[in-house]
Structures are given as structure tokens and as C-alpha cells.
């Protein structure tokens, strides 16, 4: 059976603006990403700022144009699909945004906001009061919230409104961009539990975008790590956590330590800052920051290599995994 | 920096060309034509034809515009209908009066406005701030010619502290200054309020920013924080507004020159309209447009000098 969503060698390119009528060049925010998301499963995309993770998500949601490659949803090509035809699919592919309050139109009531999908998709003749009540109950908000405005609710509540709105039309694929951003630790879990519950109830596939590896550990089936617009590692979540194959993954794991002062940490410190995507390093693009860099890394581009159940983009996974063994 | 200035000057040149062309077109499209404006409706066809030929109005429109630009570049805005003197000479003769009036007005109002704005922002919600606030808001939109008339009535006619008419004796600086007081008061008053409000608002915004908190956390003297750090940023929008404000001041100056019978561009235009001296009217409008474009350009360049982010194009 083929996957619900198949992404193949996708590039997203932006034009850089110069003067009034001129453009001075292009930058590739996403460069040749391929991944599959299975029906009813959760895929976590992890990366730091500038990794292209949000751009990739928006390309899948039809909000950015993919310049190359293909995005197949149930076998249908989404790239270059005219907006009029894409609109039909927007019932099935929905997105949740990073800023919980900022992603709600400020002058609309919560009721109008969560019933907007019906109106946009030509289903405005339904009993919207009932639908609003159903959706609010679904995400655990009191029905009275229908009359409020976005600025009158808290960030956590706004998140739930975002979920209600995304799931209003019973979609198949939910793209969640940093679903826990800005939430306190004690309520992050509520959000993730809600998503997990609704996934079980609705058979939803979820693509979670996050900068925090730990957030996706418990709820994803597969994770992909992005660096400078590329996937550098992918694999079953438990596999990646147990045996990371790419030094960047290890650095991310080490950067989110568990709250234990005695934990034996292998602190992987990356040197310097991420290079500008206007001037990509030659060879392995991670070599400028890699603590285990070898001469070959600055000249040869590593290829996507399958290893175990996952795959990675590193010349020498064996070198630093050995060093790790030495350290611990 | 240089590239920014060059780009900005290029834009100004484009605006000027467009403005002149647009002006020309509008004049052509609206009903009424220069010839009957000058000669009156009862002129004979021969006379009309002669004048049209002299003004180049008998040629096709694009040619007219082209000729107009050529002449303008040479500094030739045509001839006065009555005296046959070059319009450029007549208009430029009046420019200094208006320019001095405007510059003096913007200068005193900017200085006072910035000072009041800073005072209000620093002493936020104090009695002085509230008082300044109400006064500023009250004077902001009072039309300049109403202030002109009232100050004429009170200080020139009733109290006779200041002269009511003219710009003063040509060689006597003191007398000229004496004649400048009431007109520049009339034009500048609303700007004091406007600038004070603007500076107060942007000062308050800047004072709330993180870097001011940093400066305080390093114990920098409050004076340095206010004037060296906050005002440095808060002044930026004010500079732009003053640049644009020149346009409004040019308008206000027209009324003030009439009320105080001061020489200047405004008086020239009104006198020329009454005498149907159409080329002089056009010339004056053009020159004031140029003054306006020059002042906004200057304001943007000053802003670029003050703000490194503009220079870098960020």
C-alpha cells in the first residue's frame, strides 16, 4: 500500500528582492527532501531555525510553491495544482499554525472562526451553531467560548480553537507547526494528548513540525531531522533516539537534556553558528559545525544512506558512534 | 551610504518628472484653457491663435510635454504675459521670502515641539504632560490662516506690537525679523503641537523597548538614556514628518502671505490668478513642487545618516 503523502525530491526556492523591479538571486529553503507519511501515523520533522521545516510544511499545505520534485497525496500530484482544485483537497489536508492567537482573525468570534471551514467549503447551510458546539466540546472548551474574540482567550485555549478549526471537516492529514510553542511545560502535555486522542478517534495522519526533539518522542512513529533544507536523518522514533546516526541528531538530543543534575551526559557542543543558506558550505553542509569532522567531509557530499530501519546523510557514522562509546 | 543616496535621488528625479507630466496632463484635461484664461472669453480668434503659437499650444500634446521638459531643464518656464520677463526670474525672485518663512517656522516649531515631546514622555502622566497634551491636540489642526487672522487682529491691529504688512526693509535684518514673527507664529503653531505629539508617542514607544531597559540596567545616567539613546531613535519618524511637512507649510504659507501682505510664492500665485497671468501660476506651482520633492528627499537622506539600518537596506 502506498503512503498517504509521498514527498519526492522537493525543492522550495525563494526569489531574493533587490531594487524596485529587480531580483538579485534565489535561495533554496528546502533542497531535495523526500519522505512518506502513512495513513493514521505521525511523522515528526525536527530542525532549528532556518532548517526549512516550516517551509516544507507550507509547501505540502499548498501555501508555498514547490519549484521541483513531487508531492503526491493519495497518488495525486499537488505541485502546480491550481488553487481552485486545491481548495477541494483543503478539506482533507489542514494546517495548524505556530502562533495560537496570531493565527486567528482578530475581529471574528470563536464561533465564526471554527465554522469558517464550512462556509469556505460551501457547507454554510449546515446548522453552524450545532457544529460550533460539537467542535468546542471535541477540544474540551465550554460552549460559551463561541461568543468570545481571540484576544479574550489564553494561548492554550487559542491552541484548542486552532485544533477545532483544523479538524472541523474531518480531514485526513493534519500539519501541526510547533503545536506546543509558547505553552508552559505543565500544559504542553494536554495539547499533545488531545492530538493523540483525536488521531485515534479520527484515523488522522499527523505531520508535526518542531524544534524540540523531546516533544515528538512520545507521539511520533517516525522522525526526520532537517538541517539547512535537507533531511540529515530519518528513522523510527525509538530507533533514532536510541541510536542516532548523524552527529547533528546527537547534538539536538544532547541540547535537550533531561532534568537530572547527575545524568551522564555526552555534551556535544557544535562550533559556531549555522552558515547562511546563501553561502552553503561545500561537501557535507554540516562540516563547519561538526565536532567529528574529517578531511573528506569538506569536499565530498554525503549521500542518503540506509542504515537499519532508518537512513542518514553522514560519511562517518561509525567514527563518532565509537567516540560516544568511549565517552560513556 | 552613497548607493542609498544615489537610489534616493533617482527616485526623486522620477517623481519630479512624473509630477511635472501629471501636472501638465491635468491642466490639459480639465475644462478651461490657458488662452481664454489669459485673454478672457471675448478675445478675437487671431489673437488667440497668436498666443497659442507663442505658448506652443498649437502642437501635439507629447511634443508640448517634451518641449516643456526641455525648457524646464534649461530653466526656462516661459514669459510673463504682461511684462515679458522670464517667469523663472519672477518666481525665483519670490522663492527666498517663502523659503525663509517656512524654514524659520519649521525651525522654531521643531525645536519647541521636540522639547515639549521629550518633556511629556519623560514626565508621563504628570500635570505638565497632560497640559502639553491638551494644548498640542488643540493647536494641531487649527488652520494656519485662522491663526494668522487672529494674531493679526490681536498683535498687529489691537496691540500694535508687530507690523501688519510686508516683509520689512530689504537691508534691515532686525526689521525683517520683526516682520517674520507673526507669520511664522501662524504657520508654526500647529506644528509645535503635531511634533510634540509625535515625539511624545515615539519616545514612549522607544522608552518601552528592551535596549532602554538594558541601558538602565547598566546604570547609564538618565539624561544620556533619554537624549543619547531614546531620542536618537525617536527622532527618526519626526525627520520624515518634517520633510513631508514642508508641503503643508507651502500651502499654509499662501494664506499667511496674503493675510500679512508678504511677498512670496503664495502672494505671487494669487496676484497672478487675479491678473490671469497663467504662465506665472504654472511656474510657481512647479517650483513649489520641486521644493517639496527636495525637502522629502533631504529628510530621507538625513534619516539614512541617522539610521544605519536604512543605509543597509534592512
Amino acid at each position, binding site marked *: 500500500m502506498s503512503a498517504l503523502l509521498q514527498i519526492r525530491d522537493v525543492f522550495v526556492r525563494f526569489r531574493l528582492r533587490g531594487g524596485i523591479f529587480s531580483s538579485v538571486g534565489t535561495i533554496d529553503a528546502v533542497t531535495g527532501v523526500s519522505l512518506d507519511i502513512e495513513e493514521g501515523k505521525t511523522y515528526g520533522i525536527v530542525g532549528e531555525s532556518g532548517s526549512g521545516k516550516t517551509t516544507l510544511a507550507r509547501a505540502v499545505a499548498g501555501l508555498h510553491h514547490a519549484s521541483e520534485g513531487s508531492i503526491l497525496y493519495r497518488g495525486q500530484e499537488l505541485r502546480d495544482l491550481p488553487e481552485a482544485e486545491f481548495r477541494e483537497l483543503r478539506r482533507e489536508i489542514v494546517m495548524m499554525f505556530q502562533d495560537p492567537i496570531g493565527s486567528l482573525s482578530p475581529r471574528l468570534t470563536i464561533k465564526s472562526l471554527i465554522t469558517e471551514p464550512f462556509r469556505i467549503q460551501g457547507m454554510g447551510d449546515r446548522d453552524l451553531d450545532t457544529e460550533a458546539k460539537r467542535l468546542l466540546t471535541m477540544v474540551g472548551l*465550554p460552549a460559551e467560548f463561541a461568543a468570545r474574540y481571540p484576544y479574550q482567550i489564553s494561548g492554550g485555549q487559542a491552541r484548542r480553537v486552532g485544533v477545532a478549526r483544523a479538524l472541523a471537516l474531518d480531514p485526513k492529514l493534519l500539519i501541526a507547526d510547533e503545536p506546543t510553542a509558547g505553552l508552559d511545560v505543565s500544559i504542553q502535555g494536554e495539547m499533545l494528548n488531545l492530538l493523540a486522542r483525536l488521531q485515534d478517534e479520527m484515523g488522522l495522519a499527523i505531520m508535526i513540525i518542531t524544534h524540540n526533539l523531546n516533544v515528538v518522542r512520545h507521539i511520533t512513529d517516525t522522525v526526520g531531522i532537517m538541517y539547512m533544507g535537507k533531511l540529515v536523518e530519518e528513522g523510527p522514533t525509538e530507533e533514532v533516539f536510541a541510536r542516532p546516526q548523524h552527529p547533528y541528531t546527537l547534538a539536538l538530543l544532547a541540547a535537550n537534556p533531561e532534568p537530572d543534575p547527575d545524568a551522564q551526559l555526552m555534551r556535544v557542543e557544535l562550533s559556531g553558528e549555522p552558515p547562511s543558506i546563501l553561502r552553503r558550505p561545500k561537501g557535507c553542509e554540516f562540516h563547519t559545525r561538526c565536532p567529528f569532522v574529517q578531511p573528506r567531509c569538506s569536499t565530498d557530499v554525503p549521500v542518503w544512506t540506509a542504515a537499519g530501519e532508518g537512513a542518514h546523510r553522514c560519511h562517518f557514522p561509525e567514527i563518532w558512534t565509537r567516540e560516544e562509546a568511549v565517552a560513556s | 551610504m552613497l548607493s542609498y543616496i544615489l537610489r534616493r535621488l533617482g527616485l526623486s528625479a522620477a517623481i519630479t518628472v512624473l509630477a511635472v507630466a501629471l501636472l501638465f496632463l491635468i491642466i490639459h484635461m480639465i475644462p478651461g484653457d490657458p488662452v481664454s484664461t489669459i485673454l478672457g472669453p471675448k478675445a478675437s480668434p487671431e489673437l488667440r491663435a497668436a498666443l497659442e503659437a507663442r505658448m506652443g499650444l498649437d502642437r501635439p500634446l507629447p511634443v508640448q510635454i517634451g518641449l516643456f521638459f526641455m525648457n524646464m531643464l534649461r530653466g526656462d518656464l516661459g514669459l510673463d504675459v504682461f511684462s515679458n520677463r522670464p517667469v523663472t526670474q519672477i518666481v525665483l525672485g519670490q522663492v527666498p521670502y517663502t523659503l525663509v518663512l517656512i524654514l524659520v517656522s519649521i525651525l522654531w516649531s521643531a525645536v519647541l515641539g521636540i522639547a515639549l515631546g521629550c518633556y511629556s514622555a519623560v514626565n508621563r502622566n504628570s500635570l505638565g504632560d497632560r497640559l502639553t497634551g491638551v494644548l498640542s491636540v488643540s493647536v494641531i489642526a487649527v488652520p494656519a490662516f485662522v491663526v494668522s487672522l487672529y494674531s493679526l487682529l490681536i498683535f498687529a491691529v489691537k496691540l500694535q506690537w508687530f507690523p501688519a504688512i510686508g516683509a520689512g526693509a530689504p537691508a534691515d535684518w532686525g526689521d525683517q525679523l520683526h516682520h517674520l514673527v507673526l507669520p511664522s507664529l501662524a504657520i508654526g503653531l500647529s506644528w509645535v503641537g503635531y511634533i510634540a505629539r509625535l515625539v511624545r508617542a515615539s519616545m514612549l514607544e522607544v522608552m518601552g523597548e528592551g535596549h532602554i531597559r538594558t541601558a538602565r540596567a547598566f546604570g547609564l545616567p538618565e539624561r544620556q538614556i533619554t537624549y543619547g539613546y531614546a531620542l536618537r531613535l525617536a527622532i527618526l519618524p519626526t525627520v520624515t514628518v518634517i520633510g513631508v511637512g514642508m508641503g503643508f507649510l507651502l500651502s499654509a504659507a499662501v494664506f499667511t502671505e496674503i493675510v500679512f501682505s508678504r511677498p512670496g510664492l503664495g502672494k505671487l500665485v494669487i496676484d497672478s490668478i487675479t491678473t490671469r497671468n497663467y504662465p506665472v501660476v504654472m511656474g510657481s506651482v512647479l517650483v513649489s513642487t520641486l521644493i517639496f520633492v527636495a525637502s522629502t528627499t533631504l529628510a530621507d537622506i538625513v534619516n539614512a545618516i541617522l539610521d544605519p539600518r536604512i543605509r543597509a537596506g534592512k
Partner: protein
Amino acid sequence: MTDITLPKPRSELGEIFHHLIRDPLGLAGLIIVTLIVASALFAPWIAPYDPIALNIPDRLQSPNPAHLMGSDQLGRDTFSRVIWGGRVALQVALPTIAGAIAVGLILGMIAGYGPKWLDSLIVLFFDTVRSFPTVMFALAVVALVGPSLNTVILVIMVTSIPTYGRVVRTLTQSLKEAEFITAEKSLGASTARIMGIHIVPNVLGPLAVLAAMDIPTVVGLEAGLSFLGMGVKPPTPSWGSLLNDGYNLIRNTPWLIVAGGIPLILTTLGFTFLGEALRDVVDPKLRGKGGK
């Protein structure tokens, strides 16, 4: 949990009104503006005399019970002319600003939301039109077509378009980048829907503030042009022509100038106060704080 009753939020306009009347400045502005608009609307019933009819025996009177603000050189009652002058002022100001807002809104939204080249073009147009000094430009046009109210309206309207257009453009540009617009797109909202339901309502607030602050400017310009004899034609009463009469008679009687200036100053104060107060209410930064 579901039984909690929350206070019912006020409607948007109700909320604005509520905030306005609690601000002393706003309340003062609202009262003055209401008075001016009402006196202009009901001029025929309020004005004690015909504003045009000559009454030479009563000429150049100082204020007295029969003529509250005195009379002019033709014996016309100044108070009646002031009341009727308000009509002319609003007749000019309202269509001028409505027109400028309409055009500015459309052009500004196209510039802010549309492609970059169109934006550059429209901005160039705005900058060009803005560089005509309004009064000079108006005088040049009047010189050609002769003084009339419609000329005044048209000229001020055209030169005001950039003011509104630029504000709308800036607001649209920042709204376009806002996450909620992206969210609407992800739901499949059409451009028309995004513009109409999500952008326009967020632009109208600041635009209303700008309009309130701009009305006195336009009223002042009309009065100014009429003062120069380039606006309304006599004997139509306008605050500007009243002032012109007063200017010519400044050494005979101060009352005409005083009377002609007062309504202008009141209009200015009223609308500016209202605009300032409205700004505090509309400003989303300040609004957000009220909610917490």
C-alpha cells in the same frame, strides 16, 4: 465546567462607544462634533435670519440680543451665516474624505496585497501626487476653471488619496504577513474573502482615526480657499468668506473675524479630540491590554 456563564461581550461598535465616552477628550470631541453636525443639518430651523438677505440698516453691528454674533457690512446676521456655513463645510469635507478613502482603500489594498511591480507603481503614483502642494495645486486649477465648490472637492480629494492609500498599504502589507491570513489561505479562503472579511475590517479602524483627524484639515482648506475667493462664490455663506469679509473690515470691527474663526476652531478641536480618543480605542496594542 460547561455551566459557567461568561459576561456577554459587547458588540464592536458598542465597545468603541463605551471606551470613547469614558475618555474626557473623547466625550468632549463627541459632543462638539454632534453639535456641529446637528446645527448644519438643522440650519434652516436654528438660524434666526436668512443668511443671504440684505438688511442694510442693521449693518456692522456688534453682538447684541438680536444678532448674537453681530452683523456684516450688508447687515446679514453673522450667527445665521456661521450656522449655514457649517453646511458648506461639511458638504465639502464629507464627500472629499469619502472619495479619498474609497480610492485610497482600493489602491492601498492592491499595492499592499498585489504583486511587487504594481506596488512600486502605485507607490510612485502616491509619492507624485503627494508632492503637489495642495493649495498651490488647487489655485492653479481654479485659475483655469474658475472658483467652484466642486473644483475644491475634487482637488482636495485627489491630493488626499496618497495619505489614505499609504496607510492602507502599510497596514495591508503587515496583515498579509500575519499568520491568520496564512491560516485562512490554508483553509482555502479566496482572495476576495480574505480581503473582505479579514483585511478590510482590520484596516477600517486606523482609517477612521485618520479620517476624523483629516476632516478639520479639509474644512480648513475649504475655508482657506473661500477666504482667498477661490472656493464658494458669494453670497453663499462659508466660514472662509466670513473671514474674508472680516479681514477687509479688520480695522472697523473685530467681530467678523472672531465669529468666522470660532466655528473653524471648534470643528478642529472636536474632530481632533475625537480622533485622538478613537486612536486610543482602536490601537490594538492598547485594546489587548484591556482584555487581560
